């Protein structure tokens, strides 16, 4: 039994180590800085490996890892006193000027710049949903926010992203959600 537990433990550690690429994409979308993203991922992997025994359900590996990543990211921001980053309204008002500067950067860089100009909270949600294809419930759990907040941030993120990359998208109604989220 002890040998089996050891093997399982090694398997989880291996999967954690293999998660670097996925974690990096999301970390980069969150922070916009390749070096910082590397550091965040490195710390997340180290934390994950050290605390792998706390993972009760291996199927929840990635939500668990992203929770660690989120904690590390928040710790970093707190330490740097960048709390302003957490203010949606402020970030909305101070977004990077969308139609300035050079016209020659490639599409990928333009998208990254547009994402970087989103408020932090919107970046976090859109990265987890669109890159990781997490369910709204998983995102809510990882970021420790209500599912309704996930949905509203996601909507604002997409709307802002499109407005930064193209003419304004047609507005839709703003009624309450009438449907049931199943995932």
């Amino acid at each position, binding site marked *: 039994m002890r040998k089996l537990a050891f093997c399982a433990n090694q398997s989880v550690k291996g999967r954690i180590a293999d998660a670097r*690429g996925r974690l990096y994409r999301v970390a980069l979308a969150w922070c916009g800085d390749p*070096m910082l993203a590397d550091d965040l991922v*490195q710390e997340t992997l180290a934390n994950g490996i050290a605390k792998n025994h706390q993972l009760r359900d291996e199927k929840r590996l990635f939500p668990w890892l992203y929770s660690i990543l989120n904690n590390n990211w928040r710790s970093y921001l707190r330490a740097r006193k960048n709390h302003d980053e957490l203010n949606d309204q402020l970030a909305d008002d101070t977004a990077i000027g969308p139609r300035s500067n*050079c016209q020659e950067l490639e599409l990928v860089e333009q998208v990254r710049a547009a994402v*970087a100009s989103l408020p932090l909270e919107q970046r976090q949600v859109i990265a987890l949903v*669109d890159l990781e294809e997490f369910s709204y419930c998983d995102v809510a759990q990882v970021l420790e926010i209500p599912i309704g907040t996930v*949905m509203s941030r*996601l909507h604002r993120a997409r709307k802002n992203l499109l407005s930064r990359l*193209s003419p304004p998208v047609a507005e839709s109604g703003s009624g309450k959600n009438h449907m049931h989220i199943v995932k």
Partner: protein
Amino acid sequence: MNSHDHIDENTLGAFVDGQLNEADRAAVIRALDANFELREQVYQLRRAKDLVKLGFGGATSSAAKPRPWRGGLTRRPAVALAASFAMLGIGFSAGSLDYSLTGPGSMQAGQAMQELSAAPVPQQTNHVVLHIEDSDPRHFIAALNYVDTFMQRYADGSGEIEVVANAGGLDLMRAGLSPYEQRVVDMINRHGNVSFIACSNAIRNLELQGIEPGIISNVDTDETALQHIVGRLQSGWTYVKAESLIDARHNSAPAAGTAL
């Protein structure tokens, strides 16, 4: 829920993200069938998803191997973060991205792609990506005529052309629906340097609406039109949009001098 008036933006987002149960999903699809504006909103949401995937899907860590921890994140200078945002903000030319590759007939993709095509990458006129995104039969004819002309020009095999379809353009490549199905099949079978690519997103959109896409055999369906076209442009291929081939004087023939 019988009216699209009851479908808010969060619900549309949940639909796009596959987060609705079967009943609600069916209700949204019914509403989409009845309302063009709602469809446009869904296409825009999908476009946003595609852009995020495009922007970060290929990002790779510079840390190929685990490296020694540098002593904690909080030691990094605060200025690094600010600098990184400033760096990424350079060259944010939002106005050049007026495309809607998964849109229900928007004709703005070409402009953006033409602009991208004009980027400082040496263009290869013997490598053409031909984009069609609407179901206008005149555009189908123009595109296929263009391919024929192209193949005659490069009969020695030195040229390569790809027809990429999304949105309504997908109909060109749908078995049993395309008015030029046999011609497409013949082109694929006859020429090794002609490819037809059907946008995976457009296919998915049809499937989500309960419509069987029925793509013609040997048409590639692995990528989105956006991914494929951008990749080709970055490699220096020439971008041609099918609708631009229509010459006002001839109405169904490739415009004289268009990229050939």
